[in-house]
Structures are given as structure tokens and as C-alpha cells.
């Protein structure tokens, strides 16, 4: 694939990711509404929200406020371009795990910079909570994936997907790891028990406190894209990533709706509980999983 | 009056009667006693009650008896262990409306006295902070809860009313004019 064609597929992948995730989050809002015994909005409600926001005239707090926002969206789009979905890979051989994690982290840092520069201490507290939580769920998650990488001896996502088709899904390789990865994914998506950084009641929706109009619209697009990245990364690494598109969509929808409906029925943790939880349960499970992996597979070499 | 409070009230009434001859029992409800107190005895009675267990000053309220030209200050203290509430009712002249502050006995009294000053105009000697305004922002009239304050007149003077043309019924009605 020459350069232009691969960039084209990459952009197509990013657009597909945004459309897919916005639709599914619209459907999920309906599912959550049904859980709460009400009817919920139409499935394309998120599209309408984003388009309304892009037509609103809101407020800016300086060039760093907007620059950080553009970096956030650029990081999300850039990472989504590399994501392999059902066999379609934009940049063959370059979609390795560490690069995706760090480019997504650039998006997170852009968002932190922009909400920090809004001047509202509520936003800084929200970002502080988000980063504290981030360190909680990222360490076990990345450790598990490193165990996977050293097991499959490759860190390129698309190769891992092929290998899983041959030797069965990674869920069978590391069942405990799957559970921990799901808990971390739950934290990454910011679903209910772990949405302390977005707590509307305590810190007025945390980092989003000063966003409105097009800033909030851009941030929602970046959020949808980063959710697409996290969930499809999870599906590719642990659930075999789908040979055909419908299979991938099915797994993707199942994981996201399961995580959201879990969130719908749980209360919100305090920030200390989140930190204490993440430093006990997932890390212990990960260590047990790695030891099991080392023992069962006779050394990972 | 046979209720559980007897064994608490009896010693209290006896003590108060003995110590403070002028203090008169005004009302004796089931869990609440009201004493009539003179301004000069107030501090002694409050000190005695505080030592006897009535540690919490629930509130100070003020009643405006405009006909006999007096303010009635009611000090409301409560004892959590015995569950009996004691009210000390004290009449002060409405004209120069002055009373001694009790913030040295109960610190909490600061904001109660400040509120009474704002809404009734009672000056509490010894508590300068109470002269500042508390709730009403930029108030420009006499203290609003005094009986001689006419709220309707103030409202008519200060706020623009909505004007309805006198024709009521189906064809008339309020006109939300938006010029």
C-alpha cells in the first residue's frame, strides 16, 4: 500500500471509529434508560448533541485552552488511524502496542493541559483525580499486555490477532488477566464506579467545567475516538479481534454495553476508595496471572 | 403531670426557685419548660443551666410585641443527656432595644444575635460584629421583621409590578408585551 492509500485507510478508520462509537454510545444510552425503566433517547442522539455543540458560540480562556484541545483531538485521531479492525490495517507493521498507548497518552496530556489552563480549580482537581486513577488502572493493564507480548513474541496488534486465530483467544491463555483487563477498561472508559474525575455532583463535571460550544463538541469527538481505541484494543488483544467486520462489531458492542450497564447499576467510589481498590485487587491478580503464565508455559522464553 | 420528665424537672424547678427568686415558671409542657427571666438575671441563669448540663444553645428568637412596646428575646437551650429543653423568655423595651450579649457563654450566639439585629434592630452590647449585615444584601430600610415595617408598601415602592388592563374574561387577559 503506498503512502497515500495507507493514510486514506487510516483516516477512513478514524472516521469509522467515530461513527461506530457514537452510534453504540447512543444505543447504550437507550439500554441504560431501559435499565432505569424509562425509554431513553433515539439512537442518533449523540450525533445531534455533537452537531448542536459545534453550532453554539461559547467561551475560550486563552490560546493554551484551545491548543491543548486540538492536541487532544489530534492525538485521538492519530491513534485511531493505527488501529487494526477486522483485518484492515492502515500502516502494516507499525501498529505496535507501546506506540498506541503513548500516542493516546499524548491526547490525555493535551486534555489535561487545556482544562488546567481554564483557570478553574475544579478542573485541576478533576484532572488530578483522573491522573491518579489513570496510574491505578494503567499499570496492571500494561503489565498484562507486556506478558501477552512476550508470550506471542510480537507487539504488533494485527500480528497478535492473527496468532490468536491460530492458537485460540488470549482469554484462554490468561483468564485472570482478562478479568483484570476488563476492570482496567472499565476505569479507562470512566464508567460509574470509577468516574470520580467527572463527578457532576462533587466537582461540577471535573475537567469539563469550563467547556461549552465547539470546545465541548471537539472534546466529545476526542472522547468517542479514545473510547473506540480502548475498546477495540481490548477486543483485539483479548477476544481475537474478529476475522470479519460483523464479528468485530458484535464483540465491540457486547463489551461496551456490558461495561456501561455495569456502570449504570453501581454507585460512584470516592477517590481514596478507587486508589486503594486499584492498588490491591488488580495488581495482585496480575502478579498471580504472570506467575501462572510463567509456571504453566514453562518459562516464557 | 405524670411523665418521665418529672424526675428531671423537679430538681431543676427547686434549684431555680431557690437560687433565683424573680425567675417565674411561665409554661411547663411535656419536654419543655419556659421561664420568665429579668434582663439582669439572664447571665446567671444561663451559667447555671450550662453547668447543669444544658450545653447547647439551640437558638435565640425575638418577638415584636408592638402594642405594649416591647421585644421578647427567647433563649432556647437544650440538654442532650436528659432530653429537656429550657426556654428563657426576656422582655426588653422596644424603644432603645438593647440587651447584653452572651457570646462569652455560648460562642454560637454570635450569628443569632447578628440576625436579630438585622431583622429587629436589637443592639447587643459587647458584640460589635453583630452590627454588620448578614443575609440582606444592600438593605435600605428599617429592619424588615418589625411589626411597623409594611412589606407590601416596600414591594410596591421597590419592584415594578406587572400591569394588567382591567378587562378580564376570555377576550382580555395579561399581555406579555415584548416591545
Amino acid at each position: 500500500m503506498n503512502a497515500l492509500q495507507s493514510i486514506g485507510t487510516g483516516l477512513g478508520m478514524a472516521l469509522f471509529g467515530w461513527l461506530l462509537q457514537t452510534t453504540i454510545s447512543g444505543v447504550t444510552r437507550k439500554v441504560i434508560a431501559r435499565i432505569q425503566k424509562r425509554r431513553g433517547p433515539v439512537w442518533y442522539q449523540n450525533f445531534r448533541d455533537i452537531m448542536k455543540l459545534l453550532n453554539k458560540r461559547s467561551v475560550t480562556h486563552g490560546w493554551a485552552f484551545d491548543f491543548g484541545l486540538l492536541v487532544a483531538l489530534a492525538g485521538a485521531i492519530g491513534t485511531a488511524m493505527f488501529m487494526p479492525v477486522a483485518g484492515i490495517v492502515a500502516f502494516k507493521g507499525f501498529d505496535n502496542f507501546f506506540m498506541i498507548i503513548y500516542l493516546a497518552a499524548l491526547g490525555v496530556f493535551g486534555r489535561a493541559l487545556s482544562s488546567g489552563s481554564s483557570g478553574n480549580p475544579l478542573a485541576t482537581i478533576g484532572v488530578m483525580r483522573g491522573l491518579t486513577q489513570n496510574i491505578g488502572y494503567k499499570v496492571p493493564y500494561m503489565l498484562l499486555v507486556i506478558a501477552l507480548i512476550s508470550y506471542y513474541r510480537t507487539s504488533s496488534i494485527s500480528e497478535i490477532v492473527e496468532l490468536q486465530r491460530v492458537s485460540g483467544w488470549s482469554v484462554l491463555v490468561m483468564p485472570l488477566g482478562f478479568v483484570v483487563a476488563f476492570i482496567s477498561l472499565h476505569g479507562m472508559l470512566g464508567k460509574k464506579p470509577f468516574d470520580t474525575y467527572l463527578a457532576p455532583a462533587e466537582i461540577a463535571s471535573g475537567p469539563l467545567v469550563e467547556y461549552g460550544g465547539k470546545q465541548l463538541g471537539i472534546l466529545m469527538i476526542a472522547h468517542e475516538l479514545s473510547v473506540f481505541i480502548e475498546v477495540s484494543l481490548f477486543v483485539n488483544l483479548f477476544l481475537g479481534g474478529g476475522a470479519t467486520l460483523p464479528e468485530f462489531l458484535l464483540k465491540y458492542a457486547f463489551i461496551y454495553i456490558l461495561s456501561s450497564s455495569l456502570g449504570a447499576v453501581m454507585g460512584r467510589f470516592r477517590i481514596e476508595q478507587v486508589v486503594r481498590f486499584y492498588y490491591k485487587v488488580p495488581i495482585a491478580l496480575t502478579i498471580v496471572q504472570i506467575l501462572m503464565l510463567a509456571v504453566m508455559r514453562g518459562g516464557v522464553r | 403531670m405524670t411523665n418521665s420528665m418529672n424526675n428531671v424537672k423537679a430538681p431543676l424547678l427547686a434549684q431555680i426557685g431557690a437560687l433565683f427568686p424573680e425567675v417565674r415558671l411561665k409554661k411547663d409542657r411535656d419536654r419543655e419548660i419556659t421561664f420568665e427571666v429579668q434582663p439582669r438575671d439572664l447571665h446567671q441563669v444561663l451559667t447555671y443551666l450550662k453547668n447543669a448540663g444544658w450545653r447547647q444553645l439551640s437558638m435565640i428568637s425575638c418577638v415584636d410585641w408592638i402594642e405594649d412596646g416591647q421585644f421578647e428575646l427567647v433563649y432556647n437551650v437544650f440538654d442532650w443527656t436528659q432530653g429537656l429543653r429550657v426556654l428563657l423568655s426576656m422582655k426588653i423595651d422596644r424603644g432603645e432595644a438593647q440587651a447584653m450579649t452572651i457570646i462569652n457563654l455560648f460562642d454560637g450566639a454570635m450569628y443569632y444575635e447578628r440576625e436579630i439585629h438585622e431583622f429587629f434592630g436589637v443592639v447587643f452590647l459587647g458584640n460589635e460584629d453583630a452590627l454588620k449585615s448578614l443575609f440582606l444584601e444592600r438593605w435600605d430600610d428599617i429592619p424588615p421583621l418589625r411589626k411597623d415595617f409594611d412589606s407590601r408598601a416596600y414591594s410596591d415602592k421597590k419592584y415594578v409590578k406587572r400591569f394588567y388592563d382591567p378587562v378580564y374574561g376570555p377576550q382580555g387577559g395579561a399581555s406579555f408585551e415584548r416591545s
Partner: protein
Amino acid sequence: MNIIHLILGLFLAGIAAYGIGRLKPAAASWLTLAASWAALLILFLGGDTLAGGNAWGLLAFKMTPLGWFFSMTLLFVYSTNTFFNLSVPAAPTRQAAYPMLYLISLASTIGVFSAENWLALFIFWEIVLWSSTFMIGFGKPGRGSIIYFGMSLLGSFMMLFAILVMGTAYQTFEVKGALMAAAQSPGPALLVFLLMLFSAMVKLGITPFHIWMPEAYHEAPDHFAPVLAGGLSKLGAFTALMVTSFLPASTLMAQPWQVRGLPLLTYILLTVSAVSIVIGTLMAIKQEDAKKLLAYSSVANSGYIMIGMLMGTPMSVSGALVHLLAHALATTVTFMVMAAVARQTGTTRMDELGGLLHRMPITFLAFLTAILSLVGLPPMLGFVSKWLILQSLASQGLFLVAAAAIFGSIGSLLYAFRILSTVFLGQLKPKHRQVREAPAVLLIPLLLLSGVTLVLGIYPYGLVQYTAKIENSLGFADTVQITGLSIQGNNGNLNALLIMGAFAIGFLIALGIFLKAPKSRKVDLMDTYTGGEFIYSPELYSYSTNFFAPLERVYAGLPEISRLYEALANRVRDLGTLVQYLFFSPLPSRTALLISVVTILLIWGEAI
């Protein structure tokens, strides 16, 4: 024009600077600037084949690719910092010694990197130590310079002892030869390697020896701290790499104890540097003062460098070298920015600062690039090195060390945001409203260094190619491969230009959406959502003290290393009092008894 002329020239320039400094301090700063930039030019043009030469048979020099890489890094840091000296206000008379010490320490660093025998290396190492101790304590020799000198002395003595052991055991002081001999013969090889590595760890600031860093960096004067933090800690990395490059071929490898294909010794040292990352990050998150926070982040980053070197695979060593350069550039920029902030606002305590982004935008941009590089995010050089190190960790399967490396990289996000948001973002304090941008003299080095970090981050291939050349010169079997525009990792490859391209495309799309939507209304900083309440005092309206309270509470109770040293110091004091009680007591009888016992032992000691 060989190395000796270069070093001698710098020494003479130093002395000349002292002379001139007494008369006109400004001229001395210009002289240091000229001298250091000239040295940079000479070394750059000379390349790594600059003629060696030896003086009086003892001080022999030879320029190797490794030496060239390290001297270029140091020289670049030193020369960009000379711009800084220009802006120092009229220094008091005793400051005149500063340019001299500055140039002498510069000359001796080049001496260390190009020395051919251990004695020359140790002599120059000591000169660096002495000159930097004086420069730290300029004006007020406080606790920082004493601790710095004490700990560095410990490291130097360890190195001296190792050199002498090598000298006696293998009868040669030649750097490569002695290490080669040590690698072959079992003899004192273990002792030599350990001592050399410990002395390197002291300079780099790895865990047990890191307590001097926060004190020294905090106390160093503003115009010397960037060099101390960015440059001088790299000396330790030089000797560490010399030693670790000989480890794979050494007898230690034949030891029965193997963990994941690594000798037990290296695995223990790997764990120590992993602990250093974790402790550096946790302590950095807790700090209230900006310079101390950056000092602890240097502790964490030295841990990364140490891990890269100890693992010994071609990719990890190249990662370590790239991380070394990235850390040097980034730390110099951050300390220069903190110096600029301190000059404009008078303090580096984070809770007194805030909102400086609006008054010092260029300084903020330079600081942002440096922080991104320290954290290791894509457009910057720090990402390339962290990627290399993490790749090699994953393929080697070292999970404990990988966990610490990940904790370090995500933890760096935390303290990077802390320093960024308390100093630059947030509310601008009224007393800082008249703060102007840093003087132009200060902005040149800032933009120069952050520009290099950005450019190398986008196009790192030349640099990684050079690290491959260094690996060849150090005797590694195979080196890190680069085909076209992608660095070949053993389980995935990295194309930094492609990542930047994807990011740039994303940025253009975001900009398009941003410009298409209706224009936003600019609002002041204080006009934010305050729950409908009216707040007028920006000082109270910012969140900066004990920033990560929930996280700090989790690891509040852990013991600190400095308490361990205090306990050690108390034991030594007790020992001292005991000796004084025995030998210098007023009662003559006790001392007479002891002297007689000692004499008896001396005379008939063997018989017993």
C-alpha cells in the same frame, strides 16, 4: 589540534576569565561564552577521530565514538548555559571565580570522556567534583553542597579503590585493557565491577545514593543548576556504560545463577534501578518545591538509563544512550525555565506561583516541550528512548522491571502535570501581573534546546544510527537496525516520522473543525463557573498545595532513605564518643593501661 590542546586551551581561558572577571564581570561571561562555543565547534568539526596524544606519558587521551557522544552532550549543555551567565546581574567580587570554575569543569569533563587510562580519568573526575562543589555553594555554602561533596567523595573513593585493585591485579591502568583483563580473569573482577558501578550510581543518583540530588539541585545557584542537573550526572553514565559493556563477555556470565538469561548480579542491579524509578516518581509527586520535584524526576530518569545499560541488548543500550541525551536536554530546559521563573517572581515554591502562562508564553512553550520529553510522549525525543527500553524489556520478559518502568512513565505524567499546572496554568496571582517574559538572552538557550528535542524526536534516525556506531566501538556483537524510516525492534518497529505525520493530519482536521465552528468569546481568567458565587481573590482561587493528596495518603507511611542515613550517622557519632572515652579521657590510668596492652600485642602478637 588534538584533545590536549583543547583541554589546555579551556584551562587557560578559565584562568584568563578569572583575571578579567576581577575587573569587568560582564567581559568574563562573554569570554566563557566564546570559549565554550569554540570548544563545541572544534569538537564537532573534529568528529570522533580527533587526534589523541599524551602528555608526559601519564595523561593519554584518545577520542572514541562513546567519548565523542558524551562530550558533545555535555558541551552542548555547557555552551547553551553560558548565555545564562550573561544575564546574571552584576556579580559580587567573589563571583569572578565562577567563570573560571565553569570553564575548568568543562575542560575536565572533556578530559574524563577522552581519557585513555584510569588515572587521567580519575584526576579529571576529581577536578569536576571540586569545581562543582564550589559552584553549588556560591555565596552561601549550605547543607546541599556539603551533602553533595560527601556523597560524591564516597563515589570517588570507591572508584579510586577499584582502579588501584585493577592496577595491582592486572598491572595496567589502560581503560580498555584493564576492563578486558578484569572480564577474563575471575580474580577481583566482581569487586571491580561492583565498585565502579556503585561510583557511577552515586553520580547518576540511583536509589541508595540519591539523597544528595534534591538538596544540591535546590541549593545550586540559578545559573549553574541546569548544568549540574542536565550535564554532570552524565559522567556516571559514562563509566557505567564502560563497565556494563564488558559484562556480557565477562566471567560473571558463567555463573550458575541465571535469571531470564541475565547473571544474578545484573538482575539485582536492575531491580535496584527499578526501585530507583519507583522511589524517584513517588517522591517527585509529593514535592512542594519545583526544583526538588525536578531533582527527583532526574532520579527516576537515571533509573531508566541504568536499566537500558544493564540489560546489555543492543536495543536497550541504544535506548539508554538516547534517553541520556533526551534527559540532558529536557532537564537543562526545565531548570533554566525554573531559573527564569525564580528571577521574575522570586520563588520556585509551587503554591506561590500560578498562571505564568499568560505572562511568559515562550518560556511556557519551551517548558512544555521539555516536560513532554521527560514524560516520553510522541513528538519528543523522550518517547523514542522509552519505546526502545520498553521494547527490550518486553522481549526480554523482565516483568518486575517492566512494571517499575511503566509505573515510572505513567507517574511522570502525574508530576509533570503537577509542576505544569501549579506554575504555569491556573490563576495568575495579582502580584505577578507585572511579570514580564524572560530576557531574550535566556530565551535563546531555551528555544535552542527544546528545538533540538523536538527535531530529534521527529527525525531520530541519525542519532540512533550513531548509537549503533557506538555499540560497534564498545564491542557489541549486533547493533540496533534501522531500515529506511523505521527502527527495527525485536517485537515491533517504530517510525517516528509516521507517528508525527498521523498526529499532524489529526491536528489539521481538528483545526478545520475549530475554525469552521462559530468564534468563541475571550473571557478573563477569573470569569469561571464558581457555583454562582462571586469570588474576587485569585490567590485563594487555585489548587496547588498537596496536590495528589489521595495518592500521597496511600504511601504516606513508607520509611524514607534519608532516615536510614541519619541512623547511620548516629551510629558513627556513638562510635566516635566511645573512642574519645577510651583514648582521650582525663584519667591517665586508663590510657596507660591501653598503651601497655597495645605494645604487648605488637611485640608478641604473632606468638599468641
